[in-house]
């Protein structure tokens, strides 16, 4: 009896997340004629433009530079998109928070899922780009999903933290955007890590987001697995950050209701 109830509870939980996620997605393209088609078209077109730019203007001595950039870019936008969206989730939905008996973490979670769905669309566009640049398709590329999942977990953890902090201090939004800029330049999105100094490399490698990007590049461009250290970093950052965020969220959520 209790088990069945828990099962329906979980089912309901995902139904709500699904609906909230659908809302965000539908809403994004609600005013356009092409509607949902944009979610594939948009990344496809912007990737085409970016690869054009990065294969002509910002030429670098990197093999398949556009793909090098795009791989980093989609993972980076997954991270920024998820954390930024999760940050404001509680505040944006405050009317729902007080009125409805929903577990509070559902809001940041559904925001992150939304970004994840968009990431899925981007992946479709990315696949087109891979074909266009004659990148051999290997089974290693399945790892992309694993990395994305781990990055999702990491982003969710950060998102949980941020959503609570954002309730307490609206300023976090601005601070975070600055922090993101810093992180972006330390993520080696459009330059090879080897081109930087040793000290800088130490910083970059300690940047959690870079690890995911590096692994993704590795499996796409080199068809290789990351080393043990890399695996350790991926695991520590994703699970560690998720737990940290989740615990903090649970600890603080009582106070959130008083605050919003």
């Amino acid at each position, binding site marked *: 009896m209790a088990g069945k109830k828990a099962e329906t509870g979980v089912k309901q939980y995902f139904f709500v997340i699904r609906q909230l996620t659908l809302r965000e997605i539908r809403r994004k393209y609600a005013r356009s004629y092409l509607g949902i088609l944009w979610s594939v078209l948009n990344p496809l077109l912007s990737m085409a433009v970016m690869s054009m730019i990065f294969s002509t203007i910002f030429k670098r001595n990197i093999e398949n530079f556009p793909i090098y950039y795009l791989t980093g870019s989609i993972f980076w936008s997954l991270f920024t998109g998820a954390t930024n969206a999760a940050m404001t989730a509680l505040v944006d939905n405050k009317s729902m928070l*007080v009125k409805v008996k929903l577990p509070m973490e559902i809001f940041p979670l559904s925001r992150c899922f939304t970004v994840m769905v968009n990431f899925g669309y981007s992946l479709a566009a990315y696949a087109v780009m891979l074909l266009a640049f004659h990148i051999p398709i290997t089974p290693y590329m399945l790892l992309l999903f694993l990395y994305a999942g781990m990055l999702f977990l990491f982003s969710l953890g950060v998102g949980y933290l941020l959503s609570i902090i954002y309730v307490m201090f609206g300023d976090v939004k601005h601070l975070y955007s600055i922090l993101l800029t810093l992180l972006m330049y330390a993520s080696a999105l459009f330059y090879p890590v080897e081109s930087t100094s040793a000290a800088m490399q130490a910083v970059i490698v300690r940047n959690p987001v870079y690890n995911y990007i590096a692994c993704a590049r590795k499996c796409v461009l080199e068809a290789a697995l990351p080393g043990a250290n890399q695996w350790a970093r991926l695991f520590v950052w994703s*699970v560690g950050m998720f*737990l940290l965020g989740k615990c903090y969220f649970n600890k603080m959520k009582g106070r959130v209701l008083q605050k919003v």
Partner: protein
Amino acid sequence: MSSHVTEIGMGQTRKRRQLARLAFGLVLGLWIWIGRRNGMYVMAAEGKVYFGSESYVWTEGEICPLGVYFDGNLAVSGYWVCLEYDSEALEYLNGADRKEGNLLWVEGGGGETGYKRMLHFQPLAEGDTVVRVVSAGGTGTESAEDGTVTEEEFTVGRLAQAPVAIEGKGSSRLAGLEVRAKEGQAEGVIEGEGEELAGQMGFSPEVLEYHMQVGYEAERLEIAYETEDADASVIVSGTELAVGENIITLTVQGGQEEAVVYTLYVERKERPERTEKTADVKAEGVDGTAVAGGTGMGQTTQEASGDGGTGFLEEGEAEPAAIEGAATGGKKGGDGEGNIVGRQGEGEGFDGLGKGEEEGEELEPELLAAVIAVFAMSVWYGWKQAKGRKRKKKPAEKKKRRKNGVRKTVNLERKAIEVRHVTMEFRLAQDEASSLKEYMIRVLKGQNHYRMLQALRDVSFEVKQGEVVGIIGTNGSGKSTLLKIIAGALPPTEGEVIVDRRKVQILTLGTGFDMELTARENVYLNGAIIGYSREFIDEKFGEIVAFAELEGFMDERMKNFSSGMVSRLGFAIATIRDSADILILDEVLSVGDLFFREKSEARIREMIHSGATVLMVSHSSNVIRKNCDTAVWIEKGALQMAGKPDVVCGAYEQMGKNGETA
């Protein structure tokens, strides 16, 4: 004779003047005629020497014609022209009759008035030079009517000279070529032993094909070149290297000469096997370069191997094998510099894209510790969650048991909700820090004072099962806070509320409606939020639409709805479910137009009287009077009165009046 004419001419009349003119003409003609007949030259025989053009622009290496013209004012029976040219700038090819040093003679004649001779030169060097006529002469002949032929030497006035500008021929050759595998990509090793390589890679402008081999890591070549002709353009077909053989062409386009194509056959090695670590290490860091210049190519530079050694030492992986590898790498570099690039940070394992890091690397101790810590944390968290779930279950069961117990003793007086000494305090910062900076300053100064706002103060009451209880009070008295606490949305600061939360249902209208979505999408969204399952919504969808009277509008965007339509839909969704055991209504009884209001009130009444326990909030005493069995009046967070609606509402209204009069 002439005096006679003059006399007449000097005479009178017009006729005479005409005559004078005629006579003058005659005299003149006669004088000339006589003069000529006697072999006297009235006009000198003049010759003219000139070139076809005032100046010339010739191109180095080409055969260039120079036209020499000799014209006379008499028939030229013979002429000669002596030309001078700069034999260092021009090479005389043909056209003249005689050549002496840098003097050329052109001779000829035969009675024509003009002669033309073409001389050919080949310019030798870029620059300016001059071709000039040093001397010229000739004889002109004239046959008189009587058959006498007079001959006269021509005098040549101006001696022509023409400046010649010689342009470079525009070489399409390279003077030097240097090809190296990209620095930092390592392993661009040129295949072959030193001498062999020197033969292959030693650049010579005449050799058009070169073969080289680079390592897998060399993703592109760096090509530096120098052309013989500064203006020549070079088109490099590409510098990127694919694995396998690559053909790179350098097309050199000079000014006049045909383009010359140099071809590099570059073989990029296959990806090295990951397992062969030592082989990898050997190759790594050796940035092979093949340098070839127009001069001194093919010389082995010994520094190469020396460089290799230090490069590896810097890398911190200086095993003897590695040094050996570097040394051979250097040798392999052959005539080029075996340029070693130590890969920074490699030894520390920082490099995410690092090559050769993957296999057999040692896990860093800090990372290992972190992994263990995180793992422990997740186990602990999972355990806590599981325990929490158990704990949650337990009280519920306990409550049930207790309730059962209660039921046994006081069967009819079952309590649905028990509010016990509930106090709710909100901590409000005195003047809330509006920014993080301000907050930090306050924390540092210890100035973070809070004001405690007591929303509820020691409120206790009970709601029996099936009872309809109305909570009344002015705005801000704490009614909604109380409802939230009962619903479990807010934990109270003190006291407790005993209620089976699973049975509690708050009726909220249109929570989470998104105006950009269609009505259909909103039904599912709102339904999900208030706890309906998908199957339930699917089943009840028609009913919802019918009740909201929105048939035909469901695929319309909500933003196009009137506010009445929106609230009708919200109401329909919220009330479609089977009535819960405990229903909480927060000001929901005024929805839509008059007709819908009747319908909605009927529905609410239906829900209220279905045997559910109802807790409703309103600041209108009429609503309370009409629907409730009991009324609870809360004012400024404290329970003022509880009892029969008429009594409580009367007191509430009295207070309102007092407040107004006061």
